[in-house]
């Protein structure tokens, strides 16, 4: 009932572990896969070893999470090794998320992770938490976004997903630019903001990085609107990500036009088996409403 296909890759169900939640190691990706995820995405892999920001790096506020992990990464060699372990042992397809500070390096990282034969490569051009170091995310400029897409495509043998930022005035233009540059799919969205939470007893920002990206329930309406806009402007499939916590949220994303749904922060809200729970709730919904396939309600918000 929930089977779906994205860029020719079969998924048992449409839930995809979002990048940066759990996926630091091969073993942790397998652990998530065993808990029912239709596909799993690695924490973004980069060329150099990075410790990330000091802690706190992730906290909860009233309506979601805020994070500035700061793209910690063991570096390319160990990153590829962990990816290989995941590809070998995971029950569901593995998506390799990659990041780099320059367009050129994106090509190099794509080339390196390709060795581990992931099902797809996701170019994370939208992390808001490393601006001090990397400058404005590529996803905020259509030319920069297209440039990265082209070079990642050139260096990959598998379908390429480009992960977009919601923090732009017109996401349609960016989506069209990456589609034109050869992207096979779009993941939308990365975290919103960045935002800030200040502790009023000490008068200090809580995150060590001070600002961080928002995720979880509060950003869902933003994510749904982004997916809706992208669906209207491109033909390539969309992985709708942002605030999906319950089956009803996944259904909403699919109605906005998503082919699959990313699940990240909900691992906190509902536990590691959130994937199985969300799937059961989608089925429950479909049975009640008389849908037999996901396709029956995909994009119906546009009709």
């Amino acid at each position, binding site marked *: 009932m929930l089977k779906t296909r994205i860029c020719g890759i079969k998924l048992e169900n449409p839930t995809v572990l979002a990048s940066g939640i759990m996926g630091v190691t091969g073993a942790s990706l397998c652990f998530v896969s065993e808990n029912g995820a239709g596909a799993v995405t690695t924490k973004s892999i980069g060329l150099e070893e990075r410790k990330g920001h000091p802690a706190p*790096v992730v906290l909860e506020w009233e309506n979601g999470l805020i994070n500035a992990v700061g793209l910690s990464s063991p570096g390319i060699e*160990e990153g590829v090794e962990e990816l290989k372990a995941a590809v070998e042992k995971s029950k569901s397809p593995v998506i390799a998320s990659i990041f780099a500070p320059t367009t050129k390096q994106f090509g190099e990282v794509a080339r390196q992770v390709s060795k581990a034969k992931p099902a797809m490569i996701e170019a994370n051009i939208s992390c808001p938490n490393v601006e001090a170091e990397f400058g404005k995310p590529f996803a905020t400029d259509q030319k920069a976004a297209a440039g990265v897409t082209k070079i990642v495509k050139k260096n990959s043998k598998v379908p390429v997903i480009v992960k977009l930022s919601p923090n732009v005035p017109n996401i349609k233009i960016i989506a069209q630019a990456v589609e034109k540059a050869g992207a096979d799919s779009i993941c939308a969205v990365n975290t919103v903001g960045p935002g800030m939470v200040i502790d009023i007893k000490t008068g200090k920002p809580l995150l060590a990085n001070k600002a961080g990206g928002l995720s979880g329930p509060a950003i869902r309406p933003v994510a749904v609107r982004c997916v809706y806009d992208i669906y209207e402007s491109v033909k390539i499939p969309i992985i709708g990500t942002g605030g999906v916590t319950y089956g009803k949220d996944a259904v909403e994303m699919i109605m906005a036009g998503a082919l699959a749904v990313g699940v990240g922060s909900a691992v906190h809200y509902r536990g590691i088996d959130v994937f199985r729970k969300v799937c059961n709730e989608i089925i429950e919904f479909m049975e009640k409403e008389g849908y037999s396939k996901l396709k029956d309600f995909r994009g119906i918000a546009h009709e």
Partner: protein
Amino acid sequence: MSECSCTESKKLEKPLVLKIEKIVDEAKDFKTFIFRHRLNAKPGQFVMLWIPRVDEKPFSVTYQDKERFALTIFKVGPFTQKLFEMKEGDKVGIRGPYGNHFKLEGKNVVLVGGGCGTAPLGFLADEMKKIKADVNFIVGAKSKPYLLYLHRMKKSGVKTFVTTDDGSFGVKGFTTELLKTFIEKNRLDKVFACGPEVMLKHVVEMCLKAGIPCEVSMERYMKCGFGVCGQCCVDNSGVRVCKEGPVFSAKKIKKIAEFGKYKRSASGKKVKL
């Protein structure tokens, strides 16, 4: 479909700012920080301690009553150094309690603590006494000035046995050697351990061989503490030490292939133990 009540019903995973009520010199390079707050932790659980504008690190609960809890901290690096410079009345943040906990069971039990691994066992010893267990506490340290809780344990009726690496107090040698004699001479219901991983590995092997139920608490690099970031996932099961752990039964720990061999650093890179 159940509606989300997650933002209402439970406390938020963000630091609660507390004043340090009291600081006690526990031993050489060890200080105990006491806070007035009802934590509702169980033995084996830990908190994330935030020093504003510095960093945030995990520490086990070593003492708890209805109004207070305490952490015993060993000075090892930049964060703990900073903490040692703080004074009573200074503000820090606390998140938690996090992780699973020791199962309070057994009539005749042995606790094996090495170095700062002794901290969570102090709390465990208190709770085991409350359920009227016969508690034997093997405490190990490199030398006499580093020994923890001898007075505290004596007061609460826990039998303590001391080993030091240099023989400056108690028996010269390792805690595991004492445990061996214990296992040979007594009928033990349960062994609990926390400390250096080489020590834990020996404890686990001895207990498995002797058929004694055993739980150990292990450490891995932690960032979020509530199971989201994936930093403390272990090979090959992928379980999170901050969530499914830090306490594992001897049987479960046998499935953790990296146990006693390597851990991961803040970047996720493997480091030999």
